[in-house]
Structure formats: C-alpha cells, structure tokens
C-alpha cells in the first residue's frame, strides 16, 4: 500500500453533520491551493471526535458542542478554541403537520404541541450536540419525552442522516441542523415546519490539539488551517457557501456582511 502521508498533511476530527453538509469538500481544495497543506477529515459522532482528538489521533478538532469544547481545552488537550461559524437547528416534520406547528418560531412550544398531539418524533438519542440541544428544549417545554408509556417518542440512537432517514420512513418530526437538512436527499414528505428561535443557534469551534501533550501533532500546519479558517478570506468563503442556493453557515470570527 502506498505511503499516504503527503509532505504536508493534517488530520481533522470533525462531526458527520459538517462533513455531510459538503462544506469541507468546498473549503479544503481552496485551502490546499493557498497553503499546499492537505487536510484529511475524519467525520464521526461528536463524542467520538473528541475521543479521537484526546487520543492524539488528529491534529485539529472541529465540532459544535461548546461545553465539551471548553472542557477539552481546560483539560489541556487543546491549545485554544476559535469560534468559526454557526448555523441553526430547525424542526422538520410531515407536510400534513398533525401537531400544527407550522410557521412557529418558538421551538419549545412546537415540541410541546408535538407531545400533546402524540405525533411521532424521531430523536437522535446519541448524546450528540444536536441531541443535547433537543433535550434542553424538551426541558423548557416541560415535557419528559422519555417517560415510560410514550410510544410517539422514538430514540434512534443514530447520526443525523440516519435519524432523518428514520423520520422520513415513519413520517415523524425531528430536530436537525440546517446544513444537513438542506443537503439531505431522502426528505420524502418532510419539510421545515419551525425555525428561527434564537435558542436554535448552533456554533462551531475549532481547536488545535496540544503539541505538548501529543508531540507528534503537526502544530504549524494545524494552526495554519485554523488561522486560515478565521482569516477574512476563509470567513468570506464560509459565508459564501451555498447549498441549493441557500446559505448554510454564518461566519462568526469576524464581521463579514452576507454577500447577498
């Protein structure tokens, strides 16, 4: 088998939602053209991404769960967290909308309506950032969906895409990040029903793995990637990214006016 490590290459541990959105496919060739550095993305569940990073099997961590990111840096695994961008979560469901949440912009209220109408809801149930966000919304709504006897609440224990496939298969409501949703090809009868609540804000951070803890980390190249992401050109590129004509991510590192 060929030796794969190019002269300059780094490994980034990230989440499936980022990968599935197509953002990396769009950004990385441009980064490589600018710097000659090849970026290899390992896209796994948030928990596993952090685990991979802790073990020193990646140079850069790129995820979206702020508390875990801060804990990661605080424990000395990472050098520093940089805010990169955000997108938002939306609530999708069958176009027939049995819970009647269409057009709402209060996420907790929407969930409460789903619960009271006992409409099917597909939860990721995998402790991911998205799942944690969903659980906090239920709490706000004052519903304990996992209580026994709730047959409408289905924990799929899977990634975003798999959960959406399940939701599409059973015509259930689900919480998803916008980027994955726009890109998702098996929507079936599902459409976006509720969005725009500020609590649905979904920030992404990027962290260089500590070279002190893992001396083999390619710190220079890794930092170059981070610097590039948060630099004006990088931020502009992120802001310009479109899926099916829709913006998917909003740059956070600097003030960049949307190009529309």
């Amino acid at each position, binding site marked *: 088998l060929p030796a794969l490590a190019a002269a300059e290459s780094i490994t980034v541990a990230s989440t499936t939602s980022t990968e599935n959105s197509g953002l990396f496919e769009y950004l990385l060739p441009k980064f490589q053209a600018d710097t000659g550095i090849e970026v290899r993305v390992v896209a*796994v*569940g*948030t*928990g*596993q*991404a*952090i*685990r991979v990073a802790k073990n020193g099997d990646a140079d850069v961590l790129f995820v979206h769960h702020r508390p875990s990111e801060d804990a990661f840096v605080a424990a000395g695994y990472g050098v520093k967290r940089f805010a990169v961008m955000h997108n938002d979560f939306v609530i999708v469901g069958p176009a027939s909308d049995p819970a009647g949440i269409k057009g709402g912009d209060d996420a907790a209220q929407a969930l409460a309506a789903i619960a009271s109408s006992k409409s099917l809801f*597909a939860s990721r*149930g*995998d*402790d*991911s950032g998205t799942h944690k966000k969903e659980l906090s919304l239920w709490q706000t709504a004052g519903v304990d969906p996992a209580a026994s006897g709730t047959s409408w609440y*289905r*924990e*799929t*224990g*899977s*990634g975003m895409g*798999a959960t959406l*496939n*399940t939701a*599409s*298969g*059973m*015509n259930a409501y689900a919480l998803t990040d916008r980027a994955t949703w726009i890109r998702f090809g098996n929507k*079936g009868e599902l459409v976006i029903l509720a969005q725009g609540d500020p609590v649905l804000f979904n920030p992404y951070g990027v962290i260089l793995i500590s070279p002190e803890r893992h001396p083999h980390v390619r710190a220079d190249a890794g930092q170059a990637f981070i610097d590039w992401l948060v630099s004006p050109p990088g931020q502009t590129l992120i802001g310009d990214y479109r899926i099916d004509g829709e913006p998917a991510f909003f740059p956070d590192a600097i003030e960049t006016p949307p190009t529309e």
Partner: protein
Amino acid sequence: MNDFSNALSTAFALVTSLDRDLFEIVGLSLEISLTAVLVATIIGLPAGAALALSRFPGRRPLIIVLNALMGLPPVVVGLVIYLLLSRSGPLGSYGLLFTPTAMVIAQSVLVTPIIAALARQTVADLHEEYDEHLRAIGSGPLQRMATLLWDGRFRLLTAILAGFGRAIAEVGAVLIVGGNILHSTRVMTTTIALETSKGNLAIALGLGLILVTLAVSVNAAAMLLGETAHRRYG
C-alpha cells in the same frame, strides 16, 4: 490501554447489574438473529443442495453469483428493504418498517446466500461420493437432496454457524430497517455503534465482549447438540 481493562470491568458490571435494558437488547438480538438464521437455513440448505445436484444451463454463472452474494453489503440490503417497506414503498401498507420483523427480513437476505453457498460446496463434496449409488437405486432429485442434506447435517452445521455469525454481528442493515429505536428495535450491534459514536469506548467494548460470549454460547450449544445427536443416531 486502560480502555481494555475498563471494557472488561464494564462488561462485568453490565452483566452483574442485571440491567433490564441489557437483557431486553440481548434477548432481541438473539431472537432476531436466530429467527433469521432459521429462515435462511430453511431456504438456503435446499437451494444450495439443489444447485449442487442439478445440471441446467446457467448453473455455473448462478454459482458464481451466489458466491458473490456472500459479499452483499449490509447497508445496501438495508436500503433496499427500507425502500420496499417504507410507507411510500410497495410493501408499505404492512407497516413493517422499524419493527423486528424488518430486521429479520434484512438479516435473512444477508445470511441466505452464505448458507446456500457453503451448503452447495458441502453437498457437492458428499455428492461426489454418493452420486452413483443414489442414481443406481433410482433416487429422484428431491430424494437425493434429502439424503445428502441428512447425511451431511453435521458438516452443514459449520455453514449455519457462519450464517449465524454474520447475522449476530451485522449492524449496517438492521440499523437502517430497524432504526435502532430504544425499547423496540435496539440490538447489541446497534447499541455498540451508538456507544462508539458517543465515544463511550469502554461500554462499546464491554458490549462487544458480551456479544462474543453470546456467540460462543450459541456455537457451543449447537455443536454439543450436534455431537450428542451424532453419537446417538450416527
């Protein structure tokens, strides 16, 4: 690697805690995989034997395809069954998607070619020896198949166990058609995948350990049963 020792103690803790969820999951895994293997055996053994015994144009390509189907990707099988059973699919009206039945169907589809292909080889080997005698006494195709399957039953056990191994370890297909829904379609492998994606490697490994132990037990039971029968009925 404290992960390994963690895994061991986690597995131990899981089992000794007599966790109801764990039993549910283990029970469902066994139920689904054993049912699927039963279905696959009922279909695969006669199919494999028929392929070993009969001569017809297109038989050799069929054997090649059958052997190749041992490499059917679970995710693809899962997808096809998902599309068939989905509400908007041709069989949607039965409402089987995301039920254990769907998982049994998926595993049966995966395992049948394995059992059939291995059975074909086994029956063909025995056939080499029996062929002339069976033909000489005027044994018909079905009778020949029955004789060879019966006399080869202890050798065929390995083929069936290979099928069981594939079924119980499989995750791609059951995840898609079952949905890994808690208290409903969550089995051991989908739980392991879930815990892995959470980064709970010790739990995942611990569950893996339990799964392998389970597989060993089923194999041991099958082999002991087979051998007892072998000794008693020759």
